[in-house]
């Protein structure tokens, strides 16, 4: 009798264990690893990008997740390429991460995506800018956001369509000075800008390079001042951008229009220069939630969700681009029915959404190198200490007008 009881108990215990295991198997979450700087000088932006991912994941989880599984975001801290590789190794090996996303730093994306390939994991990049990332033809690499050439294209298009008419000049009569920090980031954008402006018949009166850690940039400003440009375009980081604008002010250099690319649209620049000086300066940057709903459907909802979850305004616009990138990734995983590298790539290749499908105004159509050809930055302008989307015209709110061009 007793033996019978024990054997029954053993069978029951086995059945319970098996059913728990089965349940666990069903509930196994889909783990996505975010490779970004979460410590170090760029942590602020790495965090912001991860917040964008989290908001998209929260949205998907509220609808039951994807392919029947809840999604979980894991963070892999990487400020340098070796850290990127280490983070991928750890997350793919120990944490069972199935897909990687990133990256605020292009050099980290380069190394980390290569490492992810060793584990046959997709590396879905939402934010890295360097052009050569897609040129490598890595079979696991897909970029959903804009890149260096898109920034150059939009800055030149806005110079032609927005600034030239405000200056009452044709692009062919426009004198442009292009200033850039001298690493590959600034140089590649500046060279592309020069090529595009000259192709349109505009005159590039100078191409100036500077070190972003320079203590003094008076020489760069005096060189530009001597050419009397109509438009002064700059690509760089926050400290050198602020130093250039300060030196410009000190040296009495007042180009009729100023445009900055990639940085210059955050409170750090406002803090350094003050709202009076910034009035009218345009910045080519990641799309912002203040654009029209027709251009970026869901932008207002993103802003509301951000404020609800984090109880503050977004720190930087990179978050919304990351949010949209994560939405596209989840769509690709759903279409692929899983996270297999080949299948997700095949699903991405089939994506065909027109512009203005997402909150950022992006569409989704990947070229042969898996660069999204329907992802573009927008142009904002500083107006009374606030950044306001002014270009493309259908992204700008109807009551928004360009101010202080030419600069007083």
């Amino acid at each position, binding site marked *: 009798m007793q033996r019978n009881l024990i054997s029954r108990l053993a069978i029951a215990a086995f059945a319970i264990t098996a059913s728990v295991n089965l349940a666990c198997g069903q509930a196994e979450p889909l783990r996505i690893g975010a490779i970004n700087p979460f410590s170090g000088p760029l942590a602020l932006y790495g965090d912001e990008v991860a917040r964008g991912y989290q908001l998209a994941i929260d949205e998907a989880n509220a609808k039951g997740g994807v392919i029947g599984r809840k999604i979980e975001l894991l963070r892999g801290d990487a400020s340098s390429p070796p850290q990127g590789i280490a983070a991928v190794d750890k997350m793919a090996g120990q944490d069972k991460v199935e897909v990687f996303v990133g990256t605020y730093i292009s050099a980290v994306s380069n190394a980390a995506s290569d490492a992810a390939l060793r584990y046959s994991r997709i590396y879905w990049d939402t934010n890295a800018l360097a052009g050569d990332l897609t040129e490598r033809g890595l079979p696991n690499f897909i970029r959903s956001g804009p890149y260096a050439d898109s920034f150059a294209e939009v800055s030149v298009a806005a110079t032609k369509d927005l600034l030239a008419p405000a200056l009452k000049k044709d692009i062919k009569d426009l004198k442009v000075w292009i200033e850039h920090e001298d690493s590959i980031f600034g140089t590649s954008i500046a060279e592309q800008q020069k090529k595009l402006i000259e192709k349109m018949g505009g005159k590039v009166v100078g191409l100036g390079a500077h070190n972003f850690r320079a*203590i003094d940039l008076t020489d760069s400003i005096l060189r530009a001042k001597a050419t009397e440009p109509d438009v002064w375009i700059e690509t760089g980081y926050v400290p050198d951008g602020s130093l250039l604008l300060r030196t410009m002010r000190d040296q009495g250099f007042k180009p009729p229009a100023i445009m900055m690319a990639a940085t210059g649209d955050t409170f750090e620049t406002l803090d350094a220069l003050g709202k009076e000086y910034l009035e009218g300066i345009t910045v080519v940057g990641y799309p912002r939630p203040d654009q029209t709903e027709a251009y970026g459907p869901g932008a207002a909802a993103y802003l509301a969700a951000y404020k609800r979850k984090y109880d503050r305004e977004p720190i930087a616009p990179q978050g919304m681009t990351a949010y949209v990138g994560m939405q596209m990734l989840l769509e690709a995983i759903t279409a692929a029915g899983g996270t297999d590298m080949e299948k997700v790539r095949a699903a991405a290749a089939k994506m065909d959404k027109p512009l203005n499908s997402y909150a950022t105004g992006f569409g989704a159509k990947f070229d042969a190198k898996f660069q999204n050809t329907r992802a573009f930055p927008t142009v904002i302008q500083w107006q009374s200490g606030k950044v306001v989307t002014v270009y493309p015209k259908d992204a700008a709110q109807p009551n928004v007008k360009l101010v202080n061009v030419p600069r007083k």
Partner: protein
Amino acid sequence: METFLNILISGVLLGGIYSLVSIGLNLIFGVVRIVNFAQGEFVMLAMYATYFCTTHLGINPYLAVFLVAPLMFLFGLAVQRLVLQPLQNEPMMQIFATFGLLILFENSILALTRGQAFSLSGGYSSVVINLFGLKASGVRVVVFLAASGIALALMLFLQRTMPGKAIRAVIQDRQAARLMGINVERTYLLTFGLGTALAGIAGALLAPIYTLSPYIGGNFILAAFAVVVLGGLGSVPGAYFGGLIVGLIESFSGYYVDPALKQAIWFIVFVAVLVVRPSGLMGQVGAEEVGLREQT
């Protein structure tokens, strides 16, 4: 002509920045014989301290200098006494220790600020002195005047006062100075404190010019080391004029050659001076060898 003069002015004012940062470094380098890698971070800490004084305590940055410099002096005393003095007979370890301090200070500020850049955006940073079309930023003129005043005051201090004479004696020969009854350890303490206080003054006066980041100290220090070696080890006028020379070379080469090449050009001049005159332009001949000699 106007452009030439504007470049000349900007070169002199940039030289003032280099001089201000280099004088403290040179004092420590010349007397305590420590290659203080953390000197740029002392400047950085002083910049953040000034930012804090201005934004949280409402003190004008030019008044904050009277609070920040004494605090940095005390901080320098503590670093010398607690970190460097115990390693006095291990010169290599002292260098590693200052490098460790560099990493510590940078990362502490990084942890506190999360890498966010700060700027002092008061009206004083936008004051421009405009004379017959020649323009000079007010905040940079203040730095230049302060560097000139400090160089002069420090020279008088070293020439005329007993502690100053003790410092000069230690520069010349540590052992002989000890035999003459000079308390070498106390002289080191005083010198390191003084060098740190000078970094404090530099930080306070530079805070209104730059966007603050935890790594900003490194932007100054490469040039400052070149200035110290160019001007002459332990020589206050050497650091002052060395700073001006580097500033002028940088400004003229940046405008007339290429801004991307200006650092390379002043390093060529730096190497050329070292080949012709290894003790630097105003250093005591042979001092560079004393610097290398192991002293006890």
